[in-house]
């Protein structure tokens, strides 16, 4: 079984984010970049499938040259090989453009399954998995929290408002992974030393064109200080009024 895993390098969720001088990007000069946490679930899912069904895992990433570090981490976790589609301006690209580039590379390969994160934590667009499925005309199940494979039959569980649904489809397919699917392993030292010897194929990008552009970025508004309405039972009516009329939560 051949599995493709989509991997994006993103700023560490714990990094302190600053907007760059042009007001359109985040300043990446001093922040730590990591594998998108949702992609780690996808890598782990691929590794577990490989452990039971055998096969080969190829990581595919679109990003600047530095994104090889994210691919090396995935290789250290146990993936077999990787492809980096090199694009220094990948952070400007909209989801459609990214998906097109990825699809083009994936199409040239033999695969049974494409796994990805449900979203990248930096752009938060939640689109690339679905757009690739559309490009390649494949079934897609998004945000899975359980995965079972029986022959060619995929069975996955998704969390939906107030419950869960089980969805099935046939391979080849695209699945995007949600938190809770698994507990991604740490790359062990043997894996780290072996990753050095695995190949990362680099592809130059053919011009894709950009359809959607970021105009500006702003910091979220400062959280207002809490308001003390009063003390004891006397304060309850006023609190209820504020919650209903101002906060509109009840």
């Amino acid at each position: 079984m051949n599995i493709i895993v989509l991997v994006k390098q993103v700023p560490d969720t714990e990094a302190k984010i600053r907007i760059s001088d042009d007001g359109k990007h985040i300043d990446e000069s001093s922040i730590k970049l990591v594998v998108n946490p949702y992609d780690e679930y996808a890598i782990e899912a691929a590794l577990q499938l490989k452990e039971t069904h055998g096969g080969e895992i190829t990581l595919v990433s679109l990003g600047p040259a530095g994104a090889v570090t994210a691919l090396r981490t995935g290789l250290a976790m146990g993936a077999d090989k990787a492809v980096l589609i090199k694009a220094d301006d990948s952070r400007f690209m909209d989801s459609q453009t990214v998906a097109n580039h990825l699809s083009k590379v994936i199409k040239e390969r033999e695969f049974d399954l494409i796994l990805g994160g449900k979203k990248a934590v930096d752009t938060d667009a939640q689109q690339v998995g679905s757009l690739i499925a559309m490009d390649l005309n494949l079934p897609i199940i998004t945000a899975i929290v359980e995965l079972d494979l029986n022959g060619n039959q995929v069975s996955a569980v998704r969390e939906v408002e107030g419950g869960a649904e089980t969805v099935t489809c046939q391979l080849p397919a695209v699945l995007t992974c949600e938190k809770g699917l698994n507990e991604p392993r740490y790359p062990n030292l043997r894996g780290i030393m072996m990753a050095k010897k695995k190949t990362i194929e680099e592809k130059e990008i053919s011009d894709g064109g950009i359809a959607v552009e970021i105009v500006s970025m702003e910091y979220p508004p400062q959280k207002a200080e809490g308001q003390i309405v009063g003390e004891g039972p006397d304060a309850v009516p006023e609190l209820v009024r504020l919650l209903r009329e101002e906060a509109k939560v009840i």
Partner: protein
Amino acid sequence: MDSLFFNDEHRMLIDMVKDFAASEVAPVAREMDAESRFPKELVNQMAELGLMGIPVPEEYGGAGMDTVAYAAAIIEIAKADASVAITLAAHTSLGTMPIVIAGTEEQKQEFVPKLASGEILGAFGLTEPGAGSDAGATKTKAVKDGNEYIINGGKIFITNAGHAGILNITTQIIENGEIKGIGAFIVPTNTAGLKIGPPEKKMGWKASDTRQLYFEDMRVPAANLLGNPAGGFKTFMKTLIGGRISIGALGVGTAEGAYLKALQYSTEREAFGKPIHKFQGVGFKLADMATEIEAAKLLVFHAAWLKDQGQDVTKEAAMAKLYASEVAMQTTTNAIQVLGGYGYVKEYDVERYFRDAKVLEIGEGTSEVQRMIIAKEILKSVQ
């Protein structure tokens, strides 16, 4: 620092250990300290991650990484918990590396893969009631009897002893009634005649296991003699130089762990209407801590790097150990000061870092002994 000493493998290792320390070690550190509980589970996890044999060559089951990698891993673990870091450091530098460096091929094949995989834990017994800094004053005697040695005596303050599979111990070597010098033996812990005492109750490193050893007519095969006794005790002691670098790394990690807590706290705590870091008296303390930690780190990684280049680092390792352990003491003291009364209670953890720091100025050669080594080395150039 990053680009000076680290390659991609180092960076991946650091990321992995940092993650492991933050999500597995830090959450249980306070509790293990309070209960003086040995981190058995964490040792097993470290074994799975391949951390029990970082600088051990691949052919003996290790990761085949270098001293820089090993020091970096110790720093990351010590930032979360010094007891776990010393458990790993004593196992690696004292329990395993002397066999890797001085062992015969048979000894390496027999013991090193088990140690490097974490199947068994290693320990080193040098200190005796009458022989600490003066390690040559060892009273424990190994008397040759055919193909065996009969060992009598004992050791004190031995890290990991209660959980170890093998102990490397130093003894006087006696053949035909004549003292041949001081040598070392690999002693499996199931050897008859070996007794291991209860854990010591300590000021810090509470989750690390420290015990006394007793040898009563303990018979050890001559094949377990470690290193050539004719080569001399001094040559053997050189196998312990890597250990000094790892104690330096422990100093850096202990200092940095406490400093990061103080830094964070200084932005949260307000007094006289502003966050306390805005007071120069606090800001300067934090600036000194950061500077000293950076300096200690450079000494540690420089010593490690030189060692990886195959150089004799007797002086550099002693300097790194001396300076980093004193920085750890100074930084943890000031970290408590930054937290005020909160620093003195256990809930804020910095008091644990303070208690864990002191032993760094004692174990694997006191600060005085390090200064003796450095003085001797620097005077070589003018005498």
